[in-house]
């Protein structure tokens, strides 16, 4: 039983990243409101805060706030992913918002808050904290989804995302309640303690239902079939730079939390109903995502379905649930972050306006007009296809290898079939960019420094990690090891 306010400085140091982000966000809000002339510097403030948060998060480990947060290599990995995602979204977003005359301050602020939420969600050592982090993130995303609130599509996206999100939260909460009821605690540490002593926890129908509810709630954030319905609509309606964030960090966060939950409940490894369950989710997502993406004509929708499929591959790793598998998942997610963000930023740069539909056909002949963006988009398509020498290949390599080692060869076969199908639509983008003459002229925004930087950065990472993956793999391995305590 803990006394009154007995938190130490170490506790606050531990949550420094979240605090930095939240405070920076608040600062931005204030500047935006009261220091108009400084507005043009807001993106840089945001970026700076990211840098600071990153530094603040370095080499802290342990549990703090009496178990409310657990900081480890695992959570550190998530921090990097989240910060990276926000950075890219901001870099790419500035130009688009400028072009469309949309308020920016809150945009950055909410992105930072969302990042804080993701980080908190993954660091949470207690289901309650996880839930709060998740809600913090979600609320920001709801608002960002409806950012272009005068735009019918955007508001619709916001509405759909919000309603589904709320439903998912309810399910998640039900699961938390049940777990709490059956195990008497919501703390991962305690749950793991109970679960690791055999016979102590009876996995009866009640608990199973609870766990399932949690899985469903997180699968919704990851957008796995059949909990994916929102994704295409939201991607399509949401402002593109924000999608660059939405489609990466939250998914990654949800995946890691799921891994955390599963590991806490099944320290000895996934048992019978759960591994096949995840396998089913993976197969459904891979097949549905890839096949439906094939018939999409709207770029962002297509990328949404592709994202569903990509998360299917990650789910293969979850189903395998060995150190190698989680390491693979980590690498895959990092690669997916860079690649997907690059793709969406390129889409933003290659479109004439946020309110315009982003049709594949609009890309025709842009290879000549905007070589950099087009090249980056091409590269990311290749990476999503999983072709060497891009990071996409490395991710698939690790995941598939782990799955094969784990005896899930059938899953990998489904996976490669999916990849084969995916060639169809990923290369269609390339075809439009380089091999097709434009039907009509599209007016484009002039290249700006920030997005240019984003493009060079992502391109560099896609290739660098594809050719020299060692560093990335080592980090991911540490993360996985930290989670599984190996």
């Amino acid at each position, binding site marked *: *039983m*803990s006394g009154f306010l007995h938190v130490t400085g170490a506790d606050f140091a531990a949550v420094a990243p979240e605090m930095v982000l939240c405070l920076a966000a608040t600062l931005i809000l204030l500047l935006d409101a009261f220091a108009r002339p400084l507005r043009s510097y807001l993106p840089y403030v945001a970026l700076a805060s990211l840098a600071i948060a990153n530094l603040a998060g370095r080499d802290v480990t342990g549990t703090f706030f*009496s*178990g*409310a947060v657990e900081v480890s290599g695992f959570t550190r990995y998530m921090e990097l992913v989240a910060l990276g995602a926000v950075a890219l979204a901001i870099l790419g977003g500035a130009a688009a918002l400028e072009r469309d005359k949309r308020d920016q301050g809150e945009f950055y602020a909410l992105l930072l808050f969302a990042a804080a939420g993701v980080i908190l969600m993954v660091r949470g050592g*207690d289901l*309650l904290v996880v*839930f*709060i982090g998740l*809600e913090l993130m979600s*609320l920001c995303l*709801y*608002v960002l989804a*409806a950012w272009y*609130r*005068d*735009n*019918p*599509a*955007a*508001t*619709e*996206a*916001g*509405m*759909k995302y*919000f*309603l589904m999100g*709320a*439903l998912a*939260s*309810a399910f998640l*909460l*039900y699961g*938390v*309640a*049940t777990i*709490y*009821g059956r195990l*008497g*605690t*919501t*703390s991962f540490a305690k749950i793991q303690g109970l679960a690791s002593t055999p016979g102590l926890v009876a996995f009866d129908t009640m608990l199973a239902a609870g766990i399932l509810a949690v899985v469903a709630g997180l699968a919704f954030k990851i957008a796995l079939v059949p909990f994916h319905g929102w994704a*295409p*609509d939201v991607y*399509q*309606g949401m402002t593109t730079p924000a999608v660059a964030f939405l489609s990466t960090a939250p998914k990654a966060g949800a995946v890691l939390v799921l891994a955390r939950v599963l590991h806490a409940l099944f320290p000895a490894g996934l048992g019978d109903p759960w591994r096949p369950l995840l396998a089913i989710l993976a197969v459904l997502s891979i097949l549905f995502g890839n096949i439906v993406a094939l018939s999409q004509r709207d770029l962002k929708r297509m990328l949404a379905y592709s994202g569903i499929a990509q998360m299917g591959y990650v789910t293969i790793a979850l189903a395998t649930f060995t150190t190698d598998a989680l390491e693979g998942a980590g690498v895959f997610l990092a690669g997916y972050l860079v690649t997907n963000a690059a793709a969406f930023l390129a889409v933003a740069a290659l479109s004439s306006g946020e309110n315009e539909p982003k049709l594949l056909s609009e890309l025709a002949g842009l290879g000549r007009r905007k070589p950099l963006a087009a090249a980056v988009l091409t590269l990311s398509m290749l990476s999503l296809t999983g072709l060497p020498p891009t990071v996409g290949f490395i991710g698939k390599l690790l995941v598939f290898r782990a799955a094969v080692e784990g005896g899930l060869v059938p899953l990998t076969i489904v996976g490669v079939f999916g990849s084969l199908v995916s060639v169809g639509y990923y290369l269609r983008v390339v075809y439009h960019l380089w091999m097709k003459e434009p039907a009509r002229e599209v007016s484009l925004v002039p290249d700006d420094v920030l997005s240019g930087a984003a493009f060079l950065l992502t391109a560099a990472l896609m290739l660098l990690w594809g050719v020299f993956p060692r560093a990335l793999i080592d980090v991911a391995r540490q993360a996985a090891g930290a989670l599984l305590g190996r």
Partner: protein
Amino acid sequence: MTGVLSGVAPMAVPPGAYLVVGTLLFAIGLAGALLKRNALSIFLSIELMMNAVNLLFLTYARMRGDMAGQMIVFFVIAIAAAEASIGLAIFVALFRARRTVDVDKIALLKW
């Protein structure tokens, strides 16, 4: 993290009853979420689901004589309020843009 619920008597009503009621309310909320057409009504039903879950939390807490459940409920209520404000704001914006909040009329983004 725990806080023991200071002295409570053994429950008169079998806890299972509370759980069943809570679960039923959850299901009813779900039904509302699935069957209503008005965005607000749907969200309303979801709020009901949340409250149902709260009931479960309280029941478990009571059964275990444990504070944690109540604390969670406390937070959930707050979060629900926040959600509500955002959600309703979204609905307002939606209504401005589309002159309706009937979700069956709102399917611009599809397929």
